[in-house]
Each structure stands twice: as structure tokens, then as C-alpha cells.
């Protein structure tokens, strides 16, 4: 069971001849506080594993889905990815062994299409039939309607929403019962959640905060790593005591997997993110620790003193933004494995630290803030 329930966690500091994505049973952590070799589910209510399902993942080739699809296949489900095919359907992940990758890529299926073509979505899904849909990349309710129409006997629709739907508040953390903001730029997620509720389908909605981890396409940790590597100061707006929250993508994938077939999760919303929050200044320091960099020089500035045009000078919203994850813990036994430095180290070791990143470094706004241009070697 331990092998079948293999964790996707990596051994952080020890180079391992075995895959960093290999089963928990073989992965050894030197960090005494995080026993990554403990098989998943040891602490949790171990219910009977869900029967093998025919699962459709909308997306799945970019970030969350990479980890989620692997975990679902390891648990014995049939997984089809619905994508346009622009990105490779499968890619070997950093640290993933050839054998593991071969196993995964031989099993995962692809349904090529554009989810904006609602007619195609409806006909193709209806023709194939699926038990469960994971909607990882949906932004608008209109995208979800054809899926629901196509699959009237759908057992569960699991949606990747966002904690960005919460109405900004002076009282924190956000709980799932808090007011949402119908005007937020995530209102499409809200409208989707409403559609799911009114449709009568068995749905579960997951609201992550900031997601991080290897292969992150949102420059969250990468933003800090670029500056740390360049030996540059880290410009942080305001007092740097704004509090945010990061959740590791592998913990998120695990949470998505755990709600599958779980009756307690029926028609429920869950915040999923790290167990602790972090200040902006603290995050800069944590990234430095993760990458083995010296403690960074942090420069605070008043964003109102600058006009950055269309460029983003800092990757986080300039406010407190964090959510309680206790509902998932209490109701479903889902708790995050990674603490922040461990998780950032995992990301660094498997991605930026190997020389890979998604966005080239751009220090334009930094230089405006620092008031000078550094000559790069």
C-alpha cells in the first residue's frame, strides 16, 4: 500500500540514486523534523481507497496538473488530460526517474481540444464519458457549463478556485465562510462555484493561496531567487510586514487527490495552503535559506513614489492575504507536509537551482527603486 500510495515528495538534501519523485518508502530526508519516508496517510483516517475512476483533467500539462495527474495514476485511476496540445502532453519532471516517467507517460491519455470551443467540449466529453472531472485551469463559469451538460452522471466535479475570491478584510485569516468579493479579478472563479452549486452536481472547490514549487510558472519564488543569485538587494514595498501564505504544489496535488470520492467533501469549499503564514521580509529570508544564499539585503520603498507602468515591481498583492486551512485538516485530515523553508528548498533543488526558470530576470523596476543601474557581468 505504501508503494501504491507513494508520496511525490523529494529527498531534499541528499542526492539520491532513486528518483526524487519516487515512493515515500525509499526517500530519505536528512531533516529530522519532516519524515518524508512516512507513507502518506499514516496520520490520517485511512478509508478504503476510491475505486479506480475514469478521470478527466482540464489542463494538466503546466504545473498543478503535472503532479496531480501522476498521483492519480499511481493510485490506479485512468487519467485523460484535455489540452490544446501546445505544450508537450508529458514531460519528464526534474528528479523523475526514467522508469517512473515511462510508466506515467504510457498510461496518461490525451484529449486534444480547445476548451473555449464549448460545442467540442460538450460532444467530445459526452462521447467519452468520465466519472470525475478535475478542472484545474477553468476561469469562467461558461467554460464549465458544457462539461456539466456533457456528463449528467458525473460523480464529482473538483474545481481549482482561488483564495483571491475573498473580500479584503481587516479580520484574518480568511475562513471558507467569509464574504467573497464579486468584483475581484477572480470573479470568474466565484461564478463557477455558484454554477456548480446551482447545477446539483457533486462538486468540491479548492481555494489555494499562492502556490509554489518546482516548475511554478508564476514568478513567486523565482522572483526572489533571481535577485538572490544576482546578489542584488530585494526591494519590498511598504514595511515588509505584510503577511502572505504559500502552499507547495505537491501538498495541493495531495489535497486534490484526497477529496476524490470523499463524501465529506461533497459541495464543500476548502482553503488549501501552508500551515503557517509569512511576512514579505520573512519570505525573502526563507528563499535565501532555501537556496543557500546569505541573508539578503532588503530595501523597503513606498510604491506610491514610483510609476512602474505595466511592470509588476513585486509578485504579491500589497496587502495581508492568507487563509485558514483548518477546515481541510479537521474534516478531511488533510495537512500540508512542507513547511516553508523545506518547500522552497524543494523548489530550488528541482528547478531554479538547476538553472531552470520560466521568466528571465528583469530588474528594471528594481533599478528604478534602487535609483541606479547595476552593471551586470
Amino acid at each position, binding site marked *: 500500500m505504501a508503494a501504491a500510495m507513494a508520496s511525490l515528495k523529494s529527498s531534499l538534501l541528499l542526492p539520491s540514486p532513486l528518483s526524487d519523485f519516487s515512493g515515500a518508502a525509499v526517500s530519505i530526508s536528512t531533516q529530522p523534523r519532516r519524515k518524508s519516508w512516512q507513507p502518506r496517510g499514516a*496520520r490520517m483516517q485511512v478509508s478504503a481507497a476510491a475505486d479506480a475512476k475514469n478521470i478527466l483533467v482540464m489542463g494538466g500539462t503546466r504545473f498543478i496538473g503535472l503532479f496531480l495527474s501522476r498521483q492519480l495514476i499511481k493510485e490506479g485511476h485512468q487519467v485523460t488530460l484535455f489540452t490544446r496540445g501546445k505544450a508537450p502532453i508529458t514531460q519528464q519532471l526534474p528528479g523523475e526517474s526514467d522508469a517512473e516517467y515511462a510508466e506515467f507517460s504510457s498510461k496518461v491519455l490525451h484529449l486534444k481540444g480547445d476548451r473555449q470551443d464549448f460545442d467540442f467540449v460538450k460532444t467530445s466529453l459526452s462521447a467519452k464519458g468520465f466519472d470525475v472531472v478535475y478542472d484545474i485551469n477553468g476561469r469562467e463559469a461558461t467554460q464549465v457549463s458544457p462539461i456539466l451538460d456533457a456528463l449528467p452522471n458525473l460523480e464529482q466535479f473538483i474545481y481549482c478556485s482561488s483564495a483571491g475570491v475573498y473580500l479584503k478584510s481587516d479580520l484574518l485569516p480568511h475562513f471558507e465562510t467569509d464574504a467573497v468579493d464579486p468584483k475581484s479579478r477572480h470573479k470568474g472563479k466565484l461564478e463557477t462555484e455558484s454554477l456548480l452549486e446551482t447545477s446539483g452536481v457533486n462538486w468540491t472547490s479548492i481555494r489555494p493561496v499562492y502556490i509554489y514549487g518546482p516548475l511554478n510558472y508564476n514568478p513567486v519564488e523565482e522572483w526572489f531567487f533571481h535577485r538572490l543569485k544576482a546578489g542584488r538587494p530585494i526591494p519590498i514595498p511598504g514595511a515588509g*510586514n505584510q503577511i502572505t501564505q504559500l502552499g507547495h504544489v505537491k501538498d495541493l496535488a495531495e489535497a486534490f487527490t484526497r477529496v476524490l470520492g470523499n463524501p465529506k467533501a461533497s459541495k464543500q469549499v476548502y482553503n488549501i495552503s501552508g500551515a503557517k503564514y509569512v511576512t514579505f521580509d520573512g519570505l525573502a529570508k526563507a528563499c535565501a535559506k532555501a537556496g543557500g544564499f546569505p541573508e539578503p539585503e532588503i530595501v523597503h520603498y513606498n510604491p506610491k513614489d514610483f510609476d512602474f507602468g505595466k511592470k509588476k515591481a513585486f509578485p504579491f498583492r500589497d496587502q495581508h492575504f492568507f487563509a485558514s486551512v483548518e477546515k481541510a485538516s479537521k474534516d478531511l485530515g488533510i495537512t500540508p507536509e512542507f513547511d516553508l523553508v523545506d518547500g522552497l528548498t524543494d523548489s530550488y533543488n528541482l528547478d531554479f537551482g538547476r538553472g531552470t526558470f520560466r521568466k528571465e530576470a528583469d530588474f528594471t523596476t528594481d533599478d528604478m527603486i534602487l535609483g541606479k543601474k547595476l552593471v551586470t557581468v
Partner: protein
Amino acid sequence: MAMAATATAAAGAVAAFTSGRRISTSPPSSLSSPFLPRAAGAIVARRRATAPTAAVLVRAQAAGAKKSVLIVNTNSGGHAVIGFYFAKALLAAGHSVTVLTVGEEGSDKMKKPPFSRFSELTSAGASTVWGDPADVGAAVGGASFDVVLDNNGKDLDAVKPVADWAKSAGVGQFLFISSAGIYTLTDQPPHVEGDAVKESAGHVGVEKYIAAEFGSWASFRPQYMIGSGNNKDCEEWFFDRIVRKRPVPIPGSGMQLTNISHARDLGSMLTLAVENPDAAAGKIFNCVSDRAVTLDGLAKMCAAAAGTTAEIVHYDPAAAGVDAKKAFPFRNMHFYAEPRAAKEVLGWTSSTNLPEDLKERFAEYASSGRGEKAMTFDLDDKILSAVGAAPVSVAA
């Protein structure tokens, strides 16, 4: 949902979750001492290895039985109100309560709330006595108790005599009001149970001592409280300025998070610990509500409760030449703990609702006449003139 193996494993998982780090769960230690009763159907609690050194007779209590509780209460300060709400919650639940207030019944301190309202306790059946915590036995006239809460001492000098007396008197459960102020500063809020504390803090010394002395002990770490009967100003500081249409000076960015709990939340948490001693045994509890509020947010909520808006002025205490501790009633930093252990271990829920609670607080403030009293605001004035003269700083 079935508990994972035993409550100990669950508690270990809880502790692991709350600290954000994995710690290994130890197997449940068997309850080997014949002197410590095991309540019927109770779950095994984590125990320290120390065996009792003296033969003590501990009153066997079945789970669900009513308890006799002694509250050793401070005679002033922010924590005084805790004993008041705890007593009320216990009485409402049918337990018997004695409040031992430090000092003398006739002292001037007793003219202030909550002491001035002790008739609310005695009319509900509580005994109120006065005395010296160094000689609790004399103060309580030799009475015996199932539970003792020390809501007085901040260090071992003050608490040791109470703890020693409790142990020799066969008290089954020893509870202590500590402080969330003992947590070391962190970049990763909130403070959760299990996080590092300042080893030199007096409260830490007490926690260690009672952990070694009692099988059934628990420590509660509060922050700030509001509630009728409070001995120390909290929201009043904001109301004083708001009703006089004065600006509200807040140090730093105003984004600092703190926890303001209604005292009834503390009373309910403590009562749950009394009623679930095995679950509570050996535990630390952050004794706070489950929401933090920004300093700016608190000012705005106080103004809203008063039916108006607040004019907030941020300032850098150093630049203004003031000591923030004197100029402002809350810590000028994030001071943010969450009550994770209480929720997971005791099934406790928070009822604090600041916007609503502050309305009730303002109603009492307004009817007290305090808003009409002449008051000086020397430090405020100093700050306001400094800010007027200098550009707004963004330093924390």
C-alpha cells in the same frame, strides 16, 4: 471519523500540524500510576515520565462530573477579567467555584471591575475570598478542590507556592494563565503551540515547573481582551479619541496584526479544559479568538461601533520622540497567535465577533460618562505635531 489510533497520535499530529513541522508521534504512555485516576471512557493522555514522589490521594472523578474549582486571581491588570469570565462559565455549567483574589477585600483595588462586580459571582453560588497566594491553604480555610487555576503569577516565585500547595492538597488538575508574549519573534506567523518561547520568561519557568509537578496540567497563553468587567483599558483607548473627534495615532504602518478576544472566549476555553482534563493534560493552549485584526482595522471597527469614522494618523515613534509603549496600548509589531490546540484538542470554537462585540462595548462606554470627562492627550499632541512637521514614514 475514527481518531487516528489514539488521541495521543492525534495530539502528536495536531502538534505537528500546528507547528508546521513534522514531529514524531510517540506511542501512548501507559497510565501506570495508581494515584492518577483514569476516567471511564477517557482517552489516554500524554504524560511526562516523572512519577509522583509522594503518595497523594487524588480524588477519582468520572468524566462529566461537576468539579470544584479554585481560581487564584490577580487583583489588577489585563488578566484580572479572565477569572471573572471563567468563574461565570463554570457556574453556568454547574461547577462549584471559589475565587481567591490576591490581597485584601477592603483594598482600593477592589473598587474597580471586575472585583466591584463580584456579587454577580456570589449570587450564582461562588465563594469569594482574599488572601496571600503564598498561603493558599489558609486563605481557603482548608477546603479542597479538583482544579486550581493560577491567574496571578507571572513567574515561579509567585506560582510555586500555589502549585506546591495544590499538589500537597491532592488537586487533580492545575491550570495556569501564561502569556502569548513569551513566544519568540517570528517571520512566520501565527504563533502556534509548540513554537519556540523566550526561555528567560517568567511564565516559561512556571510552565516547566507545573509540567514536572502535575500529570494533569495545562497552560493558557492569552493576548488582549475586551469584555465588560475588564480591569484594564483596551478599546477605551480608541473610544476616548473617537468620541472627542481626535485623530487616532497608530505607530508604524497600522498593518500590524494583533488578537483581541472577548473574555468570554477565554472562559469557555478554560471550562472545556476543566471538563475534558485528559484531553487537556500536558497541553499548551493559545487562549485567543481565531481572528487577528490589524491595528488600523481595530481603530476603524471602534469608530464604526461608535457610529462614526476614525481619522488614523501613522507615525514613527522614534521620529516623533515618543516611547511607543507609553503612547499606544498594543505592541508595535505583529503579535499574532492562533488557538489551534484548543480547536483540535478540546473542540473549542471562538465566539468573538469584534464588530458586534465592540458595539456592546461602546454602549457601555457611552453610558459610563467617560466620553464627557476632561482628558489630556499629551503624547498624542506630541505625535501629531511631529507628524505634521515631517513627511509620513513607511517604517514598521
